[in-house]
């Protein structure tokens, strides 16, 4: 598969603080990646380094096949970091024209991209008159101007209201559906879960996990169970080698699976043992639960 970005042993120190520690991962074409981590885990610093605005301390990275300069490569990249930065005294259209000139692409696509983010009717308003949501959408339009090979978004929904968050997510999903590679940094787990296929988990500048979201934790899911014969159920579950952990919360029993088993198989098994379930749900851990497990394991 074609590599878009390769990072090898990247380290960044701000004085005594190590923001990124020996980080390596690869971004491949066509996937949607999430960089996940709590605040201050080095997400923005990592993106800053590959985007040519932060100097690395050690290690290296290269874009595409490694034969072009970073700033040349960035002309094929679309990126938004933290807050939308434009010239407040220029209109949306003038701002985008400037970006076109920097990227060396024609200005034909300005209207098309403004249409994508729903700002076409406001293109002649000055940037400083925009609301935060509109600014963020303009930033996305600007990042799309060159039809980028990869779109990098750093906390794109930060500070937006629910409606704005929904709009931005919809736009990101549409772009992903077109086959554009996306790298999305966020501390909002459900955001990453909804959009990404691959994930890199960082904590204190170190990589905890990188790979597919659904393989993040080797887990076969768990059952949530309710029955009138709770104590019998628990003793059966404890004797059975299929389950490694059983939790009880009031009348809800949660049993974690060791190996794959479908809900109907389990129901049959219980019925054979003479237990009638009043509640049976099979679930997988949400990304949030997986993430917390992953970060907890190291504590």
């Amino acid at each position, binding site marked *: 598969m074609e590599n878009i970005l390769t990072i090898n042993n990247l380290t960044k120190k701000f004085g005594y603080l190590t923001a990124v520690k020996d980080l390596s991962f690869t971004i491949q074409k066509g996937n949607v990646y999430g960089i996940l981590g709590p605040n201050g885990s080095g997400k923005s610093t990592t993106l800053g380094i590959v985007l040519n*605005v932060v100097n690395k301390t050690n290690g290296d990275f290269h874009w595409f096949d490694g034969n072009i300069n970073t*700033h040349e490569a960035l002309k094929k990249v679309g990126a938004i*970091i933290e807050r939308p930065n434009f*010239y*407040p005294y220029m209109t949306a259209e003038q701002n985008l024209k400037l970006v076109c000139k*920097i990227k060396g692409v024609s200005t034909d696509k300005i209207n098309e991209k403004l249409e994508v983010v729903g700002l076409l009717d406001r293109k002649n308003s000055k940037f400083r008159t925009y609301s935060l949501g509109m600014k963020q959408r303009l930033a996305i339009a600007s990042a799309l101007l060159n039809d980028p090979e990869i779109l990098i978004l750093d906390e794109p929904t930060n500070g937006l209201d629910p409606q704005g968050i929904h709009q931005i997510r919809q736009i990101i999903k549409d772009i992903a559906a077109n086959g554009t590679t996306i790298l999305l940094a966020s501390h909002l787990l459900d955001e990453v879960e909804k959009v990404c296929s691959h994930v890199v988990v960082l904590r204190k500048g170190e990589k905890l996990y990188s790979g597919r979201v659904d393989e993040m934790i080797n887990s076969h899911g768990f059952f949530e169970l309710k029955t009138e014969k709770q104590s019998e159920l628990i003793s059966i579950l404890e004797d059975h080698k299929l389950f490694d952990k059983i939790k009880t919360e009031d009348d809800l029993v949660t049993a974690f699976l060791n190996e794959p088993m479908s809900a109907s198989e389990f129901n049959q098994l219980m019925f054979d043992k003479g237990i009638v379930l009043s509640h049976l749900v099979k679930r997988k851990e949400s990304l949030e639960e997986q993430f917390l497990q992953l970060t907890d394991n190291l504590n």
Partner: protein
Amino acid sequence: MIRLIQLELQKLWLNRTSKILIFVSFILPFTVLVLSSIKINFFGFFTLELGELGIFNFPIIWHITTFCASYFKFFFAIVVVSMIGNEYSNKTLKQNLIDGLSKKEFILSKFYTIVFFSLAATLLIGLATFCIGMYYSSYTEATIVFREVEFLLAYFVKLVGFFSLCLFFGMLLKRSAFALAFLFILYIVEWLVFWGAYEIFDSADKAFQVKNFMPLESMYKLIDQPFQRVVMTKFPDKAELGYDYAVHFSEVAIVIGWTALFIFLSYRLLKKRDL
């Protein structure tokens, strides 16, 4: 190169404040020049015609106009300083780099713009001086007309040097107001250097020689004040008035050296900095 100048011109031209300042820095010296060349009648009490003083004669006119016009460089200096300050405060510098501009291109686009405006200012002043001179001057032979046009070159080098200094201060301090304050501080520092050199050598001449190497003084020295020269022409027999007002190659070289250093340092600063 054209692309980089276009970029910067768009940034400047769409900003109302810088547009006004650019306008002022071009139009004002022009107006002053034209106004001073016409006969001014003070409500019938007396008439003032500077042309009568002989200051619009070739070749001294080159000296006088470039000297006076160079004071208007402060207006454009504000533009230079704010074009860096704004990039930092709007964080557009960061965005420009992310969009694919290299740090070198960023500095070059500013520098090219400085050269572009300096060149435009020089050509304008050159043209205006030529026209006024042709109108007033007692001598219009080509050899005399084009004697001392090197003052134009000095004017150009002086502008580029001064704006490069402003560019460097802007990059260093990130804030326009601080950068302008630093210009004033540098002015004081240069006098402190003069004072220090005077203490060491115990001679004002030697101390001035040291000060001539400092950025602001070296730029000022490119075009010496012309008034003494005007007086000299009125009293040709007073030898103690004589001074060296010519543009020297060494003076030009010092300023070009400073310019190169300021641009290089600006680049180094940007390269080292995490944005």
